[in-house]
């Protein structure tokens, strides 16, 4: 290694402008400029503090040592076998229409059903798509959905992202089987920046499952994800995030969904793994008849910390959104849900609902639930509700009186409680996967 390379290796080992340069090496000029501007925003934006309402319960300054993390800038593990844990998770999947595999922030394989490719469906490494000059990437990457201006982490991601997914389904094309992203993070103490950009054109249909896994880490390991979802008129999109990182994992995602006229854009966030999970989800209803079902499901134990910050922005009239987040918390786990429905001026005929329910399984577990409404239109139907409850002793006795051991009874009640969320998921394949993942986790409770 020459002296110069050694120095470069050294500087790109920290989060800084040189890492931005490294991540953008080989990028077209527009993208390098966009990264650089994003870095400026990052530097100009203070780290979210506990004093701000939105970060009150997640102390990033304490939990996330940004300065000590080594950014993954997208060197693929070309030719090497996939990690065992990732292969196991992939083997559980039912049939897919396509799959992208991403290891340590670099796409290592892309597969797509040939018939779909022939119909114009594009599934690609985001980095490759950007370099190939795909016009939507330049138009939509970090512009309308998750721009750098959104905050410290959106800016960091826009500056440092190494790879991710670009998926476009053309007008009228229906992809009935799931398209999957299977991600793995292997290196402790690293920071991985991934972006997902999905465009469902008019009257198309797709379902996408984004699964992330990792081994246990003894040091904080960041996986930061920006998810940009566009559902054009009459399209149907389903996005599922399945977070199953190991201990030490810090999962931080900014998701924004843009649903146009008569389209649906449904999401499910499942948080089971990692030490800290923070998800900021903003659903924007941009056209009349737009619909977003927003589901969430979390199961925390040990000292896991999950924080969901959701917003439902009803910009257009006569749109519908319905949020249901349910979580069970055991050990000394903490769950935070903060949700707001914003009905903008002129959004008459809005139907918007928001429900968060928590099941507390131990004395040390804590759930905080903060639902909120902000309504600037009349003639709307909105409701929000939150509950924090314990296992029903009467239900446990009922089950035990049929011979179930206490753990079996508890498991069944918890599974039933969380199952309500899964039963609302329209597409098959995902449900089994999530059920298995929760059951695997419940086995150790």
């Amino acid at each position, binding site marked *: 290694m020459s002296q110069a390379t050694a120095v470069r290796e050294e500087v790109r080992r920290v989060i800084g402008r040189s890492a931005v340069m490294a991540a953008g090496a080989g990028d077209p000029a527009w993208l390098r400029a966009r990264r650089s501007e994003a870095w400026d925003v990052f530097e100009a934006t203070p780290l979210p503090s506990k004093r701000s309402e939105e970060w009150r319960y997640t102390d990033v300054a304490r939990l996330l040592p940004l300065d000590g993390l080594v950014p993954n800038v997208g060197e693929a593990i070309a030719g090497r076998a996939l990690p065992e844990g990732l292969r196991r998770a992939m083997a559980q999947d039912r049939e897919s229409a396509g799959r992208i595999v991403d290891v340590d922030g670099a796409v290592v394989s892309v597969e797509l059903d040939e018939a779909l490719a022939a119909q114009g469906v594009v599934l690609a490494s985001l980095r490759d798509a950007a370099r190939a000059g795909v016009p939507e990437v330049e138009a939509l990457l970090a512009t309308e959905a998750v721009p750098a201006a959104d905050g410290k982490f959106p800016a960091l991601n826009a500056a440092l992202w190494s790879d991710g997914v670009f998926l476009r389904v053309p007008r009228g094309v229906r992809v009935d089987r799931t398209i999957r992203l299977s991600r793995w993070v292997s290196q402790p103490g690293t920071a991985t920046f991934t972006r997902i950009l999905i465009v469902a054109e008019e009257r198309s249909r797709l379902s996408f499952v984004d699964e992330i896994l990792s081994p246990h880490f003894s040091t904080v390991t960041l996986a930061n994800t920006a998810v940009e979802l566009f559902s054009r008129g009459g399209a149907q999109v389903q996005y599922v995030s399945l977070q199953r990182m190991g201990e030490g994992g810090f999962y931080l995602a900014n998701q924004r969904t843009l649903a146009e006229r008569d389209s649906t854009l449904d999401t499910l966030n499942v948080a089971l793994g990692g030490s800290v999970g923070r998800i900021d989800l903003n659903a924007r209803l941009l056209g009349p008849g737009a619909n977003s079902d927003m589901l969430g499901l979390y199961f925390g134990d040990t000292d896991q910390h999950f924080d969901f910050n959701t917003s439902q922005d009803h910009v257009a009239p006569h749109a519908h959104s319905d949020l249901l987040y349910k979580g069970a918390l055991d050990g000394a786990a903490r769950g935070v849900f903060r949700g707001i429905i914003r009905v903008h001026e002129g959004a008459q005929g809005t139907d918007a609902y928001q429900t968060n329910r928590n099941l507390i399984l131990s004395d040390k577990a804590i759930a905080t639930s903060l639902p909120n409404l902000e309504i600037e239109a009349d003639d709307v139907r909105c409701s929000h509700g939150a509950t924090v409850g314990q296992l029903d002793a009467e239900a446990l*006795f009922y089950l035990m009186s049929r011979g179930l051991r206490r753990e079996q009874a508890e498991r069944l009640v918890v599974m039933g409680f969380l199952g309500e969320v899964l039963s609302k998921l329209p597409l098959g394949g995902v449900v089994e996967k999530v059920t298995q993942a929760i059951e695997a986790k419940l086995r150790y409770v």
Partner: protein
Amino acid sequence: MDDSPILAVTGLEAGVADGDLEILKGVDLAIRPGEIHAIMGPNGSGKSTLAKVIAGHPEYEATGGGVAFGGEDLLEMEPDERAQAGVFMAFQYPVEIPGVSIANFLRTALQSRLEDGEELDLFDFQELLMERMELLDMDLAFAQRPVNDGFSGGEKKRNEILQMAVLKPALAVMDETDSGLDIDALQVVARGVNALREENPEMSVLLITHYQRVLSHIVPDTVHVVVDGRIVESGGPEVALELEAQGYEEYRKAHAA
């Protein structure tokens, strides 16, 4: 037939755990294998409390006397151990378990009866479930519904009987299973109980009821009258007929005196 009782309740005193309310004030009851005993008594006299103490409800505590089941001290056992030993209680107020299907619940209940490492044969289970549902005139789709969630009163009671029929207990304590059933449903329930007893003539039943009606379908060997936490009379089926005619007033007066 062995003449020692399957259930022996002796001088049982019980109340609400961590409270001073005394509900059962010395109950004696011996049920031999194959016998059917009915318990009647006014509201609030302690019938459900007796049933729940037998099943091991954590809200109640025995403060005196004892309960033996097949010679074992039942009060020392956890509710699941009692169930495994063969005790079944059909609840007066069955509990809703949202999101858990009846089939899944029963499968887990049967699985829990197997040794560690042994797996329930799913095919056998399906067959048993179907056969039991047919016996009880139940639609197969019923088993896919979440346990008691949104059930009508009658559906809840039928679900209790279905569970009993699948789990095949040695002792079935039925707490007002006949309340809230229409005439057809009552006959279905009675048919279920009698079919189980045909399969296992040693199965014993403790039937709590307010109505003589059910006793013409499930014919008791003995009828007990409970007033204010005590059995004040025991006798043959005629006791129920007398009660039907006279009510509890006589017993109340006698007891108050």
